[in-house]
């Protein structure tokens, strides 16, 4: 038994090493993005290699995972999906029961490294939604929509009460995009959207005070000179003073003089904007758009519903990262802990994002083998 596993494992690794199945345009786009990330981080981290080194390690780990996952055929992933979903949701429950962490109980200490189970859900929730929808009659009716809603809501609520609104938002986005791509009728979406808008006052009631404060602060940043209002103002000064061409690499005075909080993590986009200006921002956003577009292209090429929905949902959630983080540093959206994907330092998000792209690579590689 053991030897068989060992032999199979070795064969699997050999195949990963010798014949990686990757989509070249997507891989190049990602590589470029990682490079931009490391360059920005070097500047934002005041020219130290310790941050950049750590981040490069994460990228390397993520790259290995990407290659490994890319060898798992979508059909296998599909058969694993319910177990992966159930397992990751169970981990969330474990965290809720005995978690430890900074203010928010989101981490599970694995001895060597601290591990955030909610990261897994960013992948397993769209997987589960795609798995649920793939054998069913599409476009989905209310019954299936309700079931999908439940599959999304359970882990999302568990994450939201950690409290980690940013990750909850990304998890919801992944599931909802899969539903959208499955062809859910526009009028149904309109109706649900209207319902959600109607729920806003109720949701407001359930928000933590600090979360409400963040929304209110956005409307009037001057009201909170010690907390988030300060962050919003300083971040906008950084962005605005960058101008069209930027102040140049390593010339972000806002970050250098410690006016920008968390300038290597959630607010790194502000440093980037200050140093590279509007042209840099437009180029970076174009790069993100290219990656998202390529993901959707891969999704369209897939010949089977599960792969299509999953690939499309992963690609589209990437947009949510960029939009929420960019909107936050430009003072358009409240301060929510969503990193700029593959550029913000730290967290497990870089690893989980790259793993997600591994799934896309696998779907690309199997585009003509499944029907």
């Amino acid at each position: 038994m053991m030897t068989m596993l060992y032999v199979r494992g070795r064969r699997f690794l050999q195949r990963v090493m010798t014949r990686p199945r990757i989509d070249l345009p997507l891989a190049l786009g990602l590589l470029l993005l990682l490079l931009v990330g490391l360059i920005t981080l070097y500047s934002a981290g005041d020219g130290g290699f310790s941050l950049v080194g750590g981040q490069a390690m994460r990228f390397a780990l993520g790259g290995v995972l990407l290659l490994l996952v890319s060898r798992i055929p979508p059909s296998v992933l599909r058969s694993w999906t319910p177990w992966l979903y159930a397992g990751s949701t169970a981990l969330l429950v474990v965290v809720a029961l005995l978690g430890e962490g900074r203010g928010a109980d989101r981490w599970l200490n694995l001895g060597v490294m601290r591990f955030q189970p909610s990261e897994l859900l960013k992948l397993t929730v769209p997987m589960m939604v795609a798995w649920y929808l793939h054998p069913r009659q599409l476009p989905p009716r209310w019954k299936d929509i309700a079931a999908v809603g439940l599959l999304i809501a359970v882990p999302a609520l568990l994450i939201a009460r950690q409290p980690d609104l940013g990750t909850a938002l990304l998890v919801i986005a992944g599931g909802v995009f899969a539903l959208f791509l499955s062809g859910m009728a526009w009028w149904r979406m309109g109706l649900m959207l209207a319902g959600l808008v109607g729920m806003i006052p109720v949701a407001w009631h359930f928000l933590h005070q600090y979360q409400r404060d963040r929304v209110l602060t956005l409307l009037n940043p001057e009201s909170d000179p010690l907390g988030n209002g300060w962050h919003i103002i300083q971040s906008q000064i950084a962005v605005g003073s960058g101008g069209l061409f930027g102040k140049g690499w390593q010339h972000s005075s806002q970050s250098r003089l410690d006016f920008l909080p968390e300038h290597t993590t959630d607010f790194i986009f502000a440093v980037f904007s200050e140093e590279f200006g509007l042209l840099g921002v437009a180029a970076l956003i174009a790069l993100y758009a290219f990656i998202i577009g390529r993901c959707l292209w891969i999704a369209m090429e897939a010949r089977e519903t599960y792969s299509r929905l999953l690939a499309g949902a992963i690609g589209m959630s990437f947009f949510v990262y960029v939009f929420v983080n960019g909107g936050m540093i430009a003072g358009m959206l409240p301060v929510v802990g969503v990193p700029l994907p593959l550029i913000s330092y730290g967290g497990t998000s870089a690893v989980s994002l790259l793993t997600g792209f591994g799934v896309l690579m696998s779907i690309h590689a199997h585009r003509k083998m499944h029907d």
Partner: protein
Amino acid sequence: MRSRRSIKDNRDESAMFRRRALAGFLLILLGLCGLVGRFFFLQVVHHQEFVTRSQNNRVKPRALPPARGLIYDRNGVVLAENVPAFRLEVVPEQVKHMSAMLARLSRIVPLSQDDLDAFKKQVKQSRRFESIPLKLRLTEDEIDRFAVNRWRFPGVDVVPYLTRRYPLGGLFAHVVGYVGRIDAEDLKRLDPVRYQGTSHVGRSGLERSYEDLLHGTPGYELIEVNADGRTQRVLETHPPTPGKNLYLSIDVRLQKAAEKAFDGRAGAAVAIDPRNGQVLAMVSVPTFDPNLFVNGISQADYDALINDPAKPLFNRALRGVYPPGSTVKPLLGLGGLVEGFRKPQDTVLSTGVFYLPGHKRGYRDDQRGGVGTVDLVQAIEMSVNTYFYKLAMDMGIDRLSQWMGQFGFGRPTGIDLIGESPGVLPSRAWKAEHSRQPWYPGETVIAGIGQGYWAVTPIQLAHAIATLAGHGVPYAPRLVMATQDGQGAPRRPLPNPPSGPPLIHNTADWDTINQGMEMVIYGAKGTGRALAAGFPYLIAGKSGTAERYSRTTNAYNTDKSAAYLASRHRAWFVAYAPADHPQIAVAAILEAGAWGAQDAGPIVRKILDAWLAAHGGVIPGAGRISAAAAAVPGIPQTSMAPVTTQAAGAVGVAR
């Protein structure tokens, strides 16, 4: 149509997906264009404005922590104050190599392992640009040495702050409690904005339960900084709002007298004003110096406190549970009257042993051979067990625990401190929860004299006696009487309405019990008759001597030495005064006392003396004893007066 639609059509789905993916991508492009538009707005349209702001950006806000509210006794004696001190603070972001810096710094200013641990914990929990306290209470010598070397330590600063001091030391350690340095656990629950710049938080006692009022609201100042981030000048100040001052209802003089009365022997005493639930004194002996905890207690001091067999950190008044013994007898007697099981004149024959019908085990009186026929007043005066064994049997455990529960036993009293023990009120429900055995009748019998499962805290007993003294109107005990917005501002009283409906409707019932408790002090055979001498107002009291272990035989103990008895007994005494117009109710326990009246009684008397002295010896609304005694035939002037001639009715008329 329906059957055709139920077959999955992959080509159809694929086409639909294509349309959706395109629509989705268009929406995403739209969103990204919107984002770029916003950046265009900031970076091109408003570019000049932001450039100016960025160039002038030398201004940072700095939190100004509020001064913590002060705590006073009822007469304005300071119990907790703020004194200026200096501490070292570090901004982690401005330190290149933290551990190397700390090593260099410790050669100039000694840093203990505790300091370093707390600091490292807080660094992990805070944002890197926030200033974190490293060492509190710097000595002048340390400040000087650091000032000379300051240029070597960018990001490290000496910062003035206010630290907490408890001028009366241990006297209020179990009431006011203490503040402690904010640690990792605190950071999880505290509002980071409200506690920015604050280093201490209430840890125990009132400091903890009134944290919200005491803390206040931080202000901020706008400071101009140079390129290193050091402060150049202050541009604007928005002062913080200090926390509210608290006025306790405790009188320091009573508190001192109570603590002194224990003379270091372990125990606790609580005095409550029965008219409003205000706590007048609350001591737990032995105690500790709360100042040790404020800036981090050293391991040696902490070990000494933890390993002390007398457990000075243990708040006996709040958490110590003891069998109440005979002190519950007046309350039970009142239940017998109110619920109609007894009339004042009903008598019981005490033969020395009480047997349940058909049972072999005897339940004993204190005196061998008994005291003969007694009514309720005499039963209270001489603490006759047989009377209450019988009353408990007649009431039954359910009515007994229901009645006693109304006096607050078996649940927290609701005093404004955290961590109160609920104690145990014997009942079927309680036993069912804690044992698989059914309720036995014998357990009802001993519940009647405050033994068996009974467990009460001194606070609970004081609360119950205060409720009795206040003619059955219950008030949750309160330590904080009023708040104040700042020095010189008017005191705002905190309301404390009755916590339940009145328990007594017929004044005659109360009068009977009161008479019994007066006879404890003034009767010829009263167990507390030694306490009467020299107090100008009527005292009503009751002793209680609870056994720590149950007896193994029916034989009477022959060893009467005080040391032996003290090792087996807990001595209680409860009292209120003036009996005709109760204004103070006291409960005191001595953990190792031989007899309630003889050992705990004098403690109560000393508290009453201090209370009287605090009032200048005159209590408005109450009759002096010489006049009262003359008017009340129930109070014998000599110890020779025969007890049996006193008719309960006569006293009732005289009231």
